[in-house]
């Protein structure tokens, strides 16, 4: 799982590629740790190249979303491939996280 984080015009862009599962969830958690300390973050996560997420990934997205909201920010995920989107749909996570 490759994660790149960049800032532009007060917005945080996160790009994910590859599989997110138990083998790399800890690393992903470390990668996004800094985002959980931002005040009013505006986070845009591009999932174009993310091929899969496990439950562990869902938990981390949920944790990130909670932190973002508690800091008065917002978060969207975009460009999910059908397989990844299905994971969010069948678990009900599409009701929790904004996916565009």
């Amino acid at each position, binding site marked *: 799982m490759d994660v790149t984080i960049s800032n532009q015009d007060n917005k945080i862009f996160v790009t994910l590629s590859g599989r997110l599962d138990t083998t790399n969830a800890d690393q992903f958690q470390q990668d996004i740790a800094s985002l959980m300390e931002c005040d009013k973050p505006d986070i845009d996560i591009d999932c174009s190249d993310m091929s899969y997420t*496990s*439950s562990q990934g*869902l*938990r981390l997205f*949920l944790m990130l979303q909670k932190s973002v909201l508690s800091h008065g920010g917002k978060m969207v995920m975009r460009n*999910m491939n*059908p397989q990844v*989107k*299905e*994971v969010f*749909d*069948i*678990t*009900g*996570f*599409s*009701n*929790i996280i904004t*996916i*565009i």
Partner: protein
Amino acid sequence: MKLDMHCEMILDEYRERLPLFEQIKNLVLEKLRTCFKENNVVVAGLEARIKTEKSLAGKLELKGYKYRTVDDITDIVGVRIITFFSDDVDIVSALVEKMFEIDWANSVDKRKMLEIDRFGYMSLHYICRLPQSMCTDPAAPELNQVRFEIQMRSTLQHVWANMQHDMGYKTDVEIPAEYQRNMSRLAGMLELADEQFSRIRREITDYRRNVQSLVASGNFDEVHLNGDTFRSYCELKPFQRLANKIAAINQAEMYEDSMMPYYNVLMHMGMKTIGDVERMRVDCSDGAYQLALIQLAGTGLDIVAYSVALQNLCIVQILKQGFGQAGLERLFIALYGETAYNTQRAARIFEQAKKINLI
């Protein structure tokens, strides 16, 4: 401004005690904030100030003879609590009475001071001291000797007081009867408005209680579907059993999310009463579980949102009513807005539903 020696002495005491006044002001504010939080009291405003030297000198110039020392002036530290409703002034004052020592001889309920044929719009003023138990700073043993004033008033009382102040209107100053009458009319109107706000709040609370008891008693067909009634219904956890069953497919953890986004969806689906929602729950639970089973079994996904139960119920209801793939797409548009995913998701679920004979 020229003050006599006695008043100058009081001003000197004031200057000396400024750090103590500041300490008291901060302590009172902190204690009030904590108390309101612990008692779930929401106030419109909580503010405090220390009387400025200029303002104190003005007071001394007028009636300095009344005060022996600075301790006799009780409003150097002033705190104001502004409530949303006039009813809440009594709640807040009860809390203040519990927290601080009240100097009853010098406290006034100006709300009760008006003659019956006159209007005015007044607040409740308490002269207080910090109780010994709050004065733990050994460097400031005199903390509980200083009196301070707490004013409590509703937002409209606050508006009235500010307008009065801004216009330089004082009851002890002779003003033409015409202006007096106009001010009285305004005061009366604000007092009535305050009462009406409190009354409306009580009625809404009664309505909610009534709805809650109707929902709790199971008379669902008598309860119109709206945001309040749906919330009360959800508090009964009607979808818990189905959600547990769905979670059990993968021994999953359940994340308790809100069902409220589905309120608009249910309205879109033409539901009029909580009874309609309840019928969907009863009639579609098996289908909703079957759908979850075909979707989740074997995926290893061991976390699900509570709302997945209602999501699947809505899907099954739409399919049972014959609205097909287009109906599902409309459901997703109602939930998530127009996104590129809606069509493919509707198509995918439609195919899954065919496999388990939901259509």
